[in-house]
């Protein structure tokens, strides 16, 4: 199978590193080529990395509550940088406080994100979505 490439990281001034490390581990085991930018990633860094690695998808994590401020304009910046139509995922605790998820999802979709995931979404769910959206299959041997 041709390996798909994803760029991942935690946006803004966010330092929540645990989920990022685990997601990296899980994505790699699931057969993706991962460019992990770690925490405190700016929109520009994601975009530059995506261009450089010719990525198929950008997976944005935001845990600390400023996701809504940090993610604004990301789709437009991608477009400007020539990444038209690149898949954009966002997940984590992406807003401040416990808010009804459907409203949150709507706001982020309007911002141009293709998929929006709520708090505590397990890696398996994210991976299943990636397989579906990228039209690929799990690798024969997964690390179990």
């Amino acid at each position, binding site marked *: 199978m041709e390996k798909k490439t994803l760029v991942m990281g935690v946006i803004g001034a966010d*330092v929540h590193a*645990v989920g990022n490390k685990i997601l990296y581990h899980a994505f790699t085991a699931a057969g993706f080529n991962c460019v992990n930018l770690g925490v405190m990633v700016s929109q520009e860094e994601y975009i530059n990395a995506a261009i450089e690695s010719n990525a198929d998808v950008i997976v944005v994590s935001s845990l600390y*509550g400023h996701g809504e401020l940090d993610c604004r304009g990301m789709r437009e910046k991608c477009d400007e940088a020539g990444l038209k139509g690149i898949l954009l995922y966002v997940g984590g*605790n992406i807003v*401040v406080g416990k808010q009804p998820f459907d409203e949150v999802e709507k706001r982020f979709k309007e911002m141009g994100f293709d998929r929006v995931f709520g708090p505590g979404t397990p890696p398996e769910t994210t991976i299943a979505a990636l397989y579906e959206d990228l039209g690929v299959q799990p690798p024969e041997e997964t690390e179990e």
Partner: protein
Amino acid sequence: MEIRNKRLTDDEFYEIRKTVLNQWPTGKDVDLEEAFAFHKSLPDSKIFSKKLNEAKANRITLVQPRAGVALVQKHIELLTYLQDKGGADLLPTTIDSYTRQNRYKEAEIGIEESVKTGKSMLNGFPAVNHGVAAVRQVVNSIDVPLQIRHGTPDARLLTEIVFAGGYTSYEGGGISYNIPYAKSVPLERTIADWQYCDRLTGIYEEAGISINREPYGPLTGTLVPPSISHAVAIIEALLAAEQGVKNITVGYGQCGNLIQDVAAIHTLESLTEEYLHKYGYNDVVVTTVLHQWMGGFPQDEAQAFGVISWGSAAAALSHATKVIVKTPHEAMGVPTAEANAQGLRCTKQVISMLRDQSVDENSLKEEKEIIIAETKCLLNKCFELGNGDIALGTVRAFQAGVLDIPFAPSRYNAGQMLPVRDNNGAVRILTMGNLPFTKELIDFNHGKIDERAKFEKRKASFQMAIDDVYAISKGRLVGRPRG
């Protein structure tokens, strides 16, 4: 110039101070003499160190939430609610993440957006942007002692503003607010910047105003073995004491195994005192804080109450001086005032039900010995690396992986060490990296982990650590293999 654990001279301090107060316009409102006068006008009931010392003397455990929102009035409302409906003994002001990164312009946008949308768009209170007068409004409105809680690598301006504003306690430290809270800030920088904050505390102390300082104990909050966080706490206590700080609360994030947690709180207090005395700081009052489980929480509120209660039990049974409280919203987002008060009331119920109970000393013996031996290995090596200077030694220890914090975002952390739980849920160390442990200690850790591996019929590995990271959020302590 290389970092040294040495008190800043007045010349050095006031020289730096000029640039600090110029980092943002609100800095110019800080006037030390006037600030001393404000502090002296505060009643005893608003003074953090007094309340802590009293609690320590009476062996009771005080409860304190985390809380902070973008706007001053809303913040006052929030704290008032937690005081009146939550019964908080101590109150915090949690600073937002932009301020923590000195991104005051973004904080300004957050404030504006919060005014516009009518909800807090910041995850905390941007004290620098608000300035001294606004901070005093908070202090004047609240009846209990107040503390700033943040996670700011360079907190110098923030410290100036909130001290002038009348806060009587302040969390943080050059290591604990760097390694878990930053990606690429050199440790020399943060230690130096925090020497400034500590020196400022010392200056207040010398003016007769005892401001409590609290190294941030839980670090990444995720499977941090007690000896690691103890070593950091003790180093920060030594650094603070050198700058003239006299009232220190050392902290620890609950691991979940009761014996380990109680042993941790006891040894944290005794070891901190031991090292302070050993290095000539004889007039520092040391108190302790236990943080309820700092890792991932279950989403379900009823389950979250279970986790909160177990942290409360650990705090009460160890007679920690205070406990930092989680809320039933923890896994979801910054809590509402209501959810925050629920966490407090649940905690208070458990704390006060258990205040007359303790854990048998005998059953703590082995665990205390282990924690003490491990912590001393770490600290002694740090002193050795610094040729006797703990500031220098700490920087070199992180470079060498002698101090190593699991799951930390900082590139100045080796990230070689890997913790997993043993078969009773105590946190042990699987991969030592460069931790300078004796063979006995390594064998002890591996022996404990082997017991579990045998029980689970699998090898101890990164997967086991991952299972442990998720465990509590999935209703377990030990991340047993599924199926």
